[in-house]
Structures are given as structure tokens and as C-alpha cells.
């Protein structure tokens, strides 16, 4: 009897990860699972790759990188408390940092010691035409110079000359060009944020360039 229970326990533990991933993914009623005929792969979860974040702005003790056994972890401020009343976005910190400055809700220091020093702001938009159906990119110097110094970008990341820099999405996603900051600290690149950068609609008569192969294909 004891032996049997032990054996059952071992079996339960060894199938646990498989069963657990099913339970986590979809939680189908147990009956349906039993009704399935023959051997069905357990790999067919509805979402094989999508990982949704379950909660926003978790307090440090629950966020998975702070150690809850460290007393000081519980002294750290939970982000939600600090963000109360700030304008929101659907990504990143879920805070619209640009709007928060423009509306004077936040006044972060531009100098380590002197809170009265004003930033050196430059209002110059750079338009980059994009070879794709997505709207063209407008790089606004204004919000950038509100937060950063010219030397943060020039000349190491960008040569300060229109069109002098090669940029594309693959580089940005891998952390180059705009991606040095966007996707790390400044707002990230996600479906909801594309139009923040891609903000200038194409002219009404604009048509996407067609591939050679599609132009040459006699059957079309």
C-alpha cells in the first residue's frame, strides 16, 4: 500500500510540468481532456509563444528580480504609488513621460544640484521618408532635448546632419540607432507605439514600390 502511494507520487511529480503547462495555458474542463480519443500531442496549446504580462507596475517584492527576503526590498517604493495622477500610455512604464513634463506634472532636475537650471531645448523636427507603407518617421528634437543633452546622441549615435545616418527597423529592434533608448528606457517598440515615430502620413498619391518579380510576372 505504502509502496503504491509512493509510486503514484513519483508518477504525479514527473508528469506535473506537462500537466501544469496545460492547466496554465487554457484550463480546459477535465472531462473534455478525458474524452479525447487516442494519443494527442500535448504541444497544441492555443498560444505556443505569446506571453502576456499578467500585471502592471508590480511592487518590488513581487516583480521577480527583487529578493523578498531582503528587508530593504519592502522599503522600496512600488511604482504604482508614484505614477498616480500621471498621464498614461499602453506600453513601457505605462506613463506618458513627455506629456508629464509638458504639463508640469513632473519637474526632474537638469542639474544634479540646482533645481532652477532650465534645459537647453531645441525645436527641430527631422522627417525620414520610409520605403514602406507605414507612415514616415518624424524625429522631434524637442522632447529629446527636454530629457537629454546633445552629446548623448551627437556624434556617437547620430552624425548631426540630415540623412547622414542609416537607420532601419532591424537595427532599432536590436538596440541600435533609436533603439539605443527606445526599447530599453524610453518608450518601447510595440504594435501600439509604431505611430509615435511613424507619425507623418504618406502623401495621398503615394503608392508602395513594387518588386521586380511582381512586375515581370506574366501570369498576373
Amino acid at each position, binding site marked *: 500500500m505504502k509502496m503504491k502511494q509512493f509510486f503514484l507520487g513519483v508518477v504525479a511529480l514527473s508528469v*506535473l*510540468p506537462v*500537466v*501544469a*503547462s496545460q*492547466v*496554465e495555458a487554457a*484550463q480546459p474542463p*477535465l472531462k473534455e481532456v478525458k474524452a479525447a480519443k487516442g494519443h494527442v500531442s500535448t504541444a497544441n496549446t492555443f498560444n505556443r509563444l*505569446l*506571453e502576456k*504580462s*499578467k*500585471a502592471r507596475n*508590480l511592487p*518590488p517584492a*513581487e*516583480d*521577480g*528580480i*527583487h*529578493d523578498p527576503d*531582503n*528587508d*530593504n*526590498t519592502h*522599503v*522600496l*517604493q512600488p*511604482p504604482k504609488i*508614484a505614477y498616480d495622477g500621471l498621464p498614461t500610455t499602453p506600453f*513601457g*512604464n505605462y*506613463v506618458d*513621460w513627455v506629456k508629464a513634463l509638458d504639463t508640469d506634472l*513632473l519637474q*526632474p*532636475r*537638469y*542639474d*544634479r*544640484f540646482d533645481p532652477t537650471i532650465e*534645459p537647453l531645448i531645441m525645436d527641430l523636427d527631422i522627417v525620414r521618408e520610409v520605403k514602406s507603407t507605414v507612415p514616415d518617421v518624424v524625429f522631434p528634437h524637442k522632447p529629446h532635448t*527636454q*530629457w*537629454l*543633452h546633445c552629446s*548623448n546622441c551627437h556624434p556617437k549615435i547620430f552624425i548631426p546632419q540630415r540623412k547622414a545616418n542609416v537607420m532601419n527597423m532591424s537595427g532599432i*529592434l*536590436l*538596440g541600435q540607432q533609436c*533603439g*539605443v*533608448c527606445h*526599447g*530599453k*528606457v524610453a518608450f*518601447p*517598440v*510595440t504594435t501600439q507605439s509604431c505611430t509615435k515615430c511613424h507619425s507623418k502620413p504618406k502623401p495621398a498619391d503615394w503608392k508602395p514600390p513594387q518588386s521586380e518579380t511582381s512586375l515581370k510576372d506574366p501570369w498576373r
Partner: protein
Amino acid sequence: MYKSALIGLLSMLAAMVLPQAAQAEYADVVMNNYSDAAGMRPVVFPHWYHRIRFRCKVCHADLGFKFKAGGNKITMAKIIDGQFCGACHNGEISWSVENCGMCHSGIAGTPTQIHGSTVQRLVAPTYKKLGNK
């Protein structure tokens, strides 16, 4: 009834057995070049908390922090010398260095990284590896 209790139990066990995905605040930096090896918890630097108080320029231009998690090779010697975190965590602008656990608050073994970055969230594993470097 019996079955739902079983499912409940299983998912509870699953929560304990399966590694929990970190859900840290966007842009939190874990620094672990030396901490683990020295028997300290890794350091967690919260960007959100500091950018409410300072513009990026203060740290990344004036104080010379490079844009790379772990890339500044910060050590305690540099900090008590007034560099990096020590430019502010000196009892003048912010609380002083003796509050070890405020900075050294990470779970041991967490690699150096910037949390929630676009690269970490891509589904292709090759990109994930790049992100955790």
C-alpha cells in the same frame, strides 16, 4: 468539486515548481558584474524612480554613465570615491552608501540586464540570447 480541487492544487504546485517569469518594472537595470562573486545580492537600479527626479542628462552626460547595462563596471571603490551612484548616494543629494540593502536588493544569480527591453520580449530565442548578454 473533487476535480476542481485537484486542478487548484496542481496549478498551485505548478506556480511553485515552474520558474516564474520576471515581471519587473520597465527599464529596471540589474547589475551583477561582481556582486554574486562577492556574496552580495545583485544591484537593482530603478530608472523610473530616478527619472521622476532627474533628467537623463544628469547621469548620462554629466556623470558619464554609458548606455549599457553592466557597461560602466561600477565598483564600491568608485562609489565611495564619489563616482557613479556615489555622486548622489553620499548623504547630501540622497541617502548614503551604508544602506547596502537598498541597492543590493536583487535575487542572487540574476544576470546583468535591462528589464523588459524589446529584445527580451521578442519570441525568437536567438534574440533572447542577445538580450541577456
